[in-house]
């Protein structure tokens, strides 16, 4: 597990009401059964934590924790 994945999992834990084991392959909206409003809460946490903005078009192609980690890593390097 990379550092980014671990950090994302930590941020995701409060939203993990179904008690799934979080891993890089966890599908953020479907495995955790959280609705679109709550997903945005989590995305905001990620943005604040890493101090980045994730545009919607990028978000729409992001499904798993590993996908999101890739997005975060690409954007933190840029900054």
């Amino acid at each position, binding site marked *: 597990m990379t550092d980014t994945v671990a950090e994302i999992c930590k941020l995701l834990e409060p939203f993990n009401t179904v008690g799934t084991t979080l891993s890089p392959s966890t599908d953020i909206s479907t495995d955790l059964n959280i609705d679109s*409003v709550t*997903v945005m809460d989590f*995305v*905001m946490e990620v943005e604040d934590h890493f101090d980045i903005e994730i545009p*919607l*078009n990028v978000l*729409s192609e992001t*499904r798993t924790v590993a996908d999101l980690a890739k997005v975060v890593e690409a954007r933190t390097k840029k900054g």
Partner: protein
Amino acid sequence: MVRTPRSNRQLPQLLAPFATLAEGLDYAAQGVTGFNFYSSRGALQDVLPYGLLRRRALSTARKLLSLGFERGDRVAVVAETGPDFIVVFFACQYAGLVPCPMPYTMYIGGKDAYVERVAGMLRAARAGTVITPEDLLGHISEGAARAGAKRVLTFSDLQSLPEAATKLEPFRADEQAYIQYSSGSTSSPKGVLISQAAIAANTRGILRHGMRITQDDRAFSWLPLYHDMGLVGFCLAPMMGQCTVDFLATTSFARRPALWLKLMSDNQSTITYSPSFGYDLAARRINGDAPSLNLSRLRVAGIGGDMVRADVLQLFADTLGVAGFRSAAFLPSYGMAETTLAISFVDADAPFRIDSIDRHALKTEARAVPAKGETARSFVVCGKPMPDSVVEIRNDSGQPLGERRVGRIFVKSPSLMAGYYHNEDATSAAVGSDGFLDTGDMGYWLDGEMVITGRAKDLILHNGRNIWPQDIEWAAEHIEPLRSGDVAAFAVEGQDGDDDVVVLVQCRLQDEASIESLRHAVSAAIHRSAGVECRIVMVPPKSLPFTSSGKLSRSAAKQKYLSGEIAEIMQPVFLQAAQ
């Protein structure tokens, strides 16, 4: 950068006496008011006074015409909250082209659903041209290719075109104005064609009878500009009354709902609007910051777009009372894209009213009998129809009903749509030969005001969104081994008055592991396409009821589910253990 002032000192305020949108902008452009846009962190990002909007719209109209359009051609444009979209919308008004605002929303992992939706919308409007922000170019191009739309331009591509040397001929009073997509299903969306006469009449009603706009007003909106409430209520109507509007993008509101309240406090806003769920989100997120806000000037806090929920309004009023918010500011209203926007408003100066009626009499006798306590259900009274419109509440045989009789709501008004674009069947199904629109909603009369009790259609209301059960069923039926007709989706009333979504799935599988994996796959597919959390119930094959014409009967399926006649085939693990 300086935001536009609250009002025009030199230019007299005229509340939409105009025959067309272009005429309205010609007048507003003589003043100093206009639109301001805030960033996701709450900083002022763009300022677009009506004068500048008009100049940019005229120039952009000539650039559009350099592409060789014919009058009345449709131009689809992604309605991102910002100057680019609004400039193109008004450029179309001056160029005699019909703009079709398209959504800028997506869910996490929702790309495919978005592309499909865009393609459906382009087909419905027969639009050959799409204009998009740079960041959505990839998604929009895929959608355009699927729909056979030949030309995709970014906003900056459009601006780099040469201006055609032709004379501009803005839309006249007897022509069309724009296409608004109704909350139709993704697979076959409907384009509501709105005429200049309809938008002129509706904005006049909103400004004069609904919000009662004055020189002291300053509006605030985070509503999406591809929805009727955001486009008509908080962009076109304010412009037709030369009122200044401060905008926060919907996506920014979704991330930081409390920013809405903070910016309204900073701007001393007097008018805003939201579905119930927006007030709910903002009240929950403001945390300890409420005392630092000043919402005392907010005189209209409009509510529409979903069932107005009394408990949510109470929570908001309780939380924000310390900021000077008065619950008399709440303005319940009722409307839909098919009537341009507004149908009825509560008196802006009066407090809102709640009517509590007996649940049983409502369900079994279609009567609204006053009641209290556990058997009662509360509804917010949604006001009188606007003066130029006629509303009838009819029973099943078409007879108009009197006080406290629940029936279907029909509307006739100058704001009625011209029809669903190129969809004769859908238009004649919605608008009768008597000129009345069947709203598909149920309600009753109370002292001349309308009370809305729910949808007659199978529509599901969730977090202020209309979700078509067909969309959920369609997403689920694509999962192997399910087939068309294996899935029924419907809403059941949840604890808090919002809808819970139940999805019945006919399951031929036997072993527990494959049933659970199917349940998971169905849930995932629905999440991706509709962004909604559902209760997935696996039911035996051939248990879903169909009508005599072979159509799935969702209402019968729901009844059988609620009565226990159809039930989950898998016992939950803890129950098995107990047995």
